[in-house]
């Protein structure tokens, strides 16, 4: 720890895309898994000083919606936007002719859109709307002609500017061509990481001026959650792990500099399983939260009532249900998942136009995936859920589908 006050520590780090680093690797997980197995063989699971004060027979309850929403982290997008602005400042103040645009690339659900829109808000930045599907398929250059020619503008979702079909790439190629012609002012272009991987293969080239938000490691993720969670009616939640009682989060002003090993083990697992993606981490966190009504326990196991606090129990990793792609999900289901990731979500009709499958087969696949909670319909578009994303990514990568590098 560097001694800096916790509230002032900068959580958002911006780096070029090729410097993005996912927290921890599977090798570490294998090593820990082996150690865990050896520990079990040696004589059962050791119960350390953080043993759970909960009655093992007691059923924990899911949180009610209102309390659940308050227990979820809400990042400070304003502060994140300011950090991004600081990173962009040299480029904004001294535009380079060979760098007319910066591409902000990030994985799904990592907060890219919220961050970019918050950055643009309150600044002299024109936000460009994406084209319609008809404009994309028609290669309608009129959409480009209506853009601002000078000044700074933002296109938050490049993944909504193309369709993976024979005629669906013309418009985005024309956009990139005009962008690098230097005749369209200065641009910040946001792009989903899966779409970015696809577009670099089909004609985008490999633009060198890119930026992304660095993956959140265990320490920064814990602080992000701590700062982003607010209490209900003035009470500040305390989060404890259900199986060993470890304090995962307390009120920020009460937090110790050095976190106990058991607590940090949870945050490391969360950072690793979510690949440092705060949206995915929040989805796992949401599923893990439980409550025991009306009571709280102190560290010595005695029942206490701490004024102004509220304890929420967090299911351990071993007991938490993880997402998985169903065994019966065949080729069509995988095509559906891949298409949804490439395009940042699609409606059913558009899915049928970009896939070599009948709409009924696609509908069946969507039903199977929705039942497994891997996809959801939102705003008329199907998309991969944050909770399902790790399993979907693993399944597609193992089957050699084109994937991102995040």
């Amino acid at each position, binding site marked *: 720890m560097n001694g800096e006050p916790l509230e002032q520590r900068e959580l958002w780090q911006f780096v070029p895309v090729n410097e993005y680093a996912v927290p921890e690797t599977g090798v570490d997980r294998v090593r820990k898994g082996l150690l865990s197995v050896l520990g079990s063989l040696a004589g059962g699971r050791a119960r350390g000083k953080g043993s759970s004060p909960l009655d093992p027979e007691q059923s924990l309850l899911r949180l009610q919606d209102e309390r659940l929403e308050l227990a979820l982290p809400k990042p400070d997008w304003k502060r994140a936007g300011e950090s991004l602005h600081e990173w962009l400042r040299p480029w904004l103040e001294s535009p380079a002719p060979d760098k007319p645009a910066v591409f902000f690339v990030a994985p799904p659900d990592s907060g890219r859109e919220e961050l970019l829109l918050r950055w643009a808000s309150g600044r002299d930045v024109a936000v460009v709307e994406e084209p319609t599907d008809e404009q994309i398929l028609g290669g309608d250059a009129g959409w480009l002609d209506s853009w601002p020619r000078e000044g700074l503008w933002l296109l938050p979702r490049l993944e909504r500017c193309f369709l*993976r*079909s*024979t*005629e*669906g*790439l013309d418009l985005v190629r024309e956009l990139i061509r005009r962008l690098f012609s230097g005749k369209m002012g200065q641009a910040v272009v946001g792009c989903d990481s899966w779409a970015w991987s*696809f577009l670099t*293969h*089909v004609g985008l080239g490999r633009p060198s001026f890119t930026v992304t938000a660095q993956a959140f490691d265990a320490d920064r993720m814990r602080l992000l959650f701590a700062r982003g969670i607010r209490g209900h009616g003035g009470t500040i939640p305390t989060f404890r792990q259900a199986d060993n009682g470890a304090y995962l989060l307390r009120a920020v002003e009460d937090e110790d500099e050095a976190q106990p090993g058991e607590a940090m083990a949870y945050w490391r697992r969360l950072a690793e399983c979510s690949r440092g993606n705060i949206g995915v981490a929040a989805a796992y966190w949401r599923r893990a939260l439980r409550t025991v009504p009306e009571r709280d326990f102190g560290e010595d196991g005695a029942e206490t009532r701490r004024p102004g606090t509220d304890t929420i129990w967090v299911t351990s990793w071993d007991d938490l249900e993880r997402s998985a792609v169903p065994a019966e999900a065949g*080729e069509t289901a995988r*095509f559906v998942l*891949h*298409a949804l990731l490439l395009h940042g979500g699609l409606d059913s009709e558009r899915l049928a136009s*970009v*896939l*070599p499958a009948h709409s009924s087969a696609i509908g069946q696949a969507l039903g199977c995936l929705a039942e497994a909670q891997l996809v959801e319909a939102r705003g008329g578009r199907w998309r991969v859920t944050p909770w399902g994303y790790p399993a979907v990514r693993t399944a597609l990568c*193992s*089957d*050699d*589908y*084109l994937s991102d590098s995040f």
Partner: protein
Amino acid sequence: MEPAEEILRVFREFGEINVVRIALIIAAATVLLVIDQRLLPRLARKLPGKLRFHVLALVPLIRLTIIVAAAVLVLLRLIKPSVQNMVALFGFLGVGLGFAVKDYVASIVAGTVALYETPYRPGDWIRVEGVYGEVKSLEFRAVHIVTPDDTLVIIPHKKLWDTVIHNANNGSSKLQCVADFYVTPDHDGARLRSRLRDVALTSPYVQLAHEPKVVSEATPWGTRYRIRAYPMDPDQQFAFITDLTERGNAAIARLGVCFASPAVAARGEPE
């Protein structure tokens, strides 16, 4: 001494032979063979692309190892191991095999050589004398191929020894697919080539790690365009070619380019 008596002297007395141990060796070898032939391919099909091919390639090698090991262990318990006895036994076998089952043995030897040289292995798509299909298993005597219309074709290894074998993927997931299009010469070639390349790039089956190529050549009755691209998995080759063909034809039609064929060329008018 009669040759038959000489051969019988090679073997142990009946009382010296541990029948139970021999039965156990045969039983163990049988169990291992079943695991190798049935469970290992099933496991391999659950594995991701490249790993699947490596595991499938091990199946015949493991089978050969089990059979050879079991045969040696049984033989050592049946015969008195001395140089003189081994010479006599192999001499007898050589004469007998040379006349009675030479073709069978030739196939076995060819199969063993194939394991070493790997001109084909399970998971490969090969073409042999007009038969195209996936190698499902390498048996002792023959290779089992399943064609696209689900026909099992059994080809003795001996036959393949002096036959040209076309191996489409050679132990990997990289299998090039080709889709052909025939158009009349009066068109914008660069534009059509670019559009056909987009057809390949936007296929859900395409493996973008290997960039698709579009080539063209003149034929007596038109221009032939070929998309050469790789699907993610060899099993998808037919669906991939279908997808390329359907969307390629649609793209050509939308460009207003006319299709060509020998019959059309003979009539002297576009389709």
